């Protein structure tokens, strides 16, 4: 009669003794890798951060959780005219943020809208590009990793043009050809069409990516600046991307 609970306790004890050890040793060799040896970023990822509200340190306001900033050094090096513009944006943010009109959010903002996104990566022929699909407004990005250069500009896209390469185990993505219509956050941080964004995706264990970004825009900032955050893997069984089809009008009124 007493056997069953004893066995259950034993299994429990074994599980407890193994779990911490397994969690402590995610060696680089344990990273998921493709047949060609590249780290495999495939899967669904999400940011847990208040960066979309404000990239910098900020106190709570109604509807805005307090948050520690994601900008290295916390300061964004605006030129004087641009700082004034940022402050004006902040004042008018309730209606002026392009997010309120559901425009594509640009890079890197698409990463920290707060909604999940999925990396698709393969070796062989499919290694010529990495596809990233986002739940937010069906945004798609192709990161061309086949050595091709950016197309000749001038081009102004909402999501820019992305070309990637590997530096060791880090995927480095160079992005140009943006328009000047998107913001970095709901606090009015902005850029011009001269925006140049370099993203670095580094798996630090199978379920976490260190996401580091360098932002450069000689028209708006006095020097390049950096931000970083962690991307977390969604591990729930059968977790999948759903939809956030963003509308700039009251869609339910006409299409209930």
């Amino acid at each position: 009669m007493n056997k069953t609970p004893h066995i259950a306790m034993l299994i429990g004890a074994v599980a407890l003794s193994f779990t911490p050890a397994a969690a402590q040793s995610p060696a680089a060799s344990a990273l998921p890798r493709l047949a060609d040896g590249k780290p495999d970023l495939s899967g669904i990822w999400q940011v847990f951060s208040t960066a979309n509200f404000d990239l910098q340190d900020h106190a709570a306001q109604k509807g805005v959780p307090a948050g520690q900033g994601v900008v290295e050094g916390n300061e964004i090096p605006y030129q004087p005219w641009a700082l004034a513009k940022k402050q004006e944006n902040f004042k008018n943010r309730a209606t002026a943020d392009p997010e309120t009109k559901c425009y594509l959010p640009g890079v890197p903002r698409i990463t920290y809208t707060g909604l999940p996104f999925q990396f698709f990566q393969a070796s062989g022929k499919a290694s010529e590009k990495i596809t990233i699909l986002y739940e937010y407004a069906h945004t798609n990005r192709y990161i061309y990793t086949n050595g091709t250069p950016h197309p000749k500009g001038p081009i102004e896209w909402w999501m820019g043009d992305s070309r990637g390469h590997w530096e060791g185990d880090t995927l480095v993505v160079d992005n140009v050809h943006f328009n000047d219509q998107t913001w970095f956050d709901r606090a009015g941080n902005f850029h011009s069409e001269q925006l140049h964004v370099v993203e670095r995706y580094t798996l630090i264990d199978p379920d976490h990516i260190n996401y580091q970004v360098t932002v450069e825009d000689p028209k708006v900032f006095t020097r390049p600046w950096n931000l970083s955050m962690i991307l977390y893997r969604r591990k729930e069984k059968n977790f999948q991307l759903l939809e956030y089809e963003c509308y700039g009008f009251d869609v339910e009124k006409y299409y209930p």
Partner: protein
Amino acid sequence: MRIGARGFSAIAALILRGLISWGLILWGGILAPGPAAGQAPPSDTATSAAWNPPRLPDGQPDVQGMWITAVNAVFILTPAVTDDGAPRPDGRARQSGPSRVIDPPDHQIPYQPWAKEKQQRLQANKDGEGEFVDPQIRCLPSPIRGAFWQDFQILQYPGYIIFEYEGNHVFRIIPLDDRPHASNRIKLWMGDSRAHWEGTTLVVDETNMNSKGRLSREGDFASETLHLTERYTFLDSKKMHYEATFDDPTVYTRPWKIGADFIPKRAPAGYEQWEEACHEGERDAALSDLNLSSKK
């Protein structure tokens, strides 16, 4: 007046889209010599037994690339003429190409009476305002029309096939394992798809559609209870036959089918699918609430 100006811009957007469509119709008309020749082949003739495709590491036939409809990109479902060659009595269909409806044999969608009435109302007012504006004009997605409208890209990754439609950059991420559909409480513009391969035929089972997107430019529609079964039969690397069965007992008297042939897009080496920011470009149509208000 602001309303007038916005309304004018919306009309201009509609006209622009119309002109693009008419250009495609003219092109399609040249290719399609007549209604009889233009009819789609019977559905059961599409088999894929002969083709031995290149395979991906996960075993999938490699069918990646951009696909377009073989004839006429415009997506009107029913033929421009009746089977005896007479113009359709409603006079609205403008497509010179083949009927997309391949079953029933009369190429008409088997609507229940209330649904036929609704379809005709939507068709008659398709240049109207408010709820009559085709959601696609507003850059809202449709799970069916995407492949018939602009480039349709197939991407394959281990365990997945992805359909990426250039128009409004919408996509379907389709897992190839046996996981269940999402809860039927979750309705999606692009539906919830699961698929498996039968030889070189990809069979896609799609549910959970909110069915707010229309099926055609003539007001054809389904409801949230639509169950769509799609068969993408790759006959070889240059030809794919598409069929979809619409099963929706809320709207139709029986299941019915559309069919069409697809071919690879002819494009230079290194062709890339670039950004198509529909919503952002057509701001009057996509963002303004005012120009959708009924005139009163």
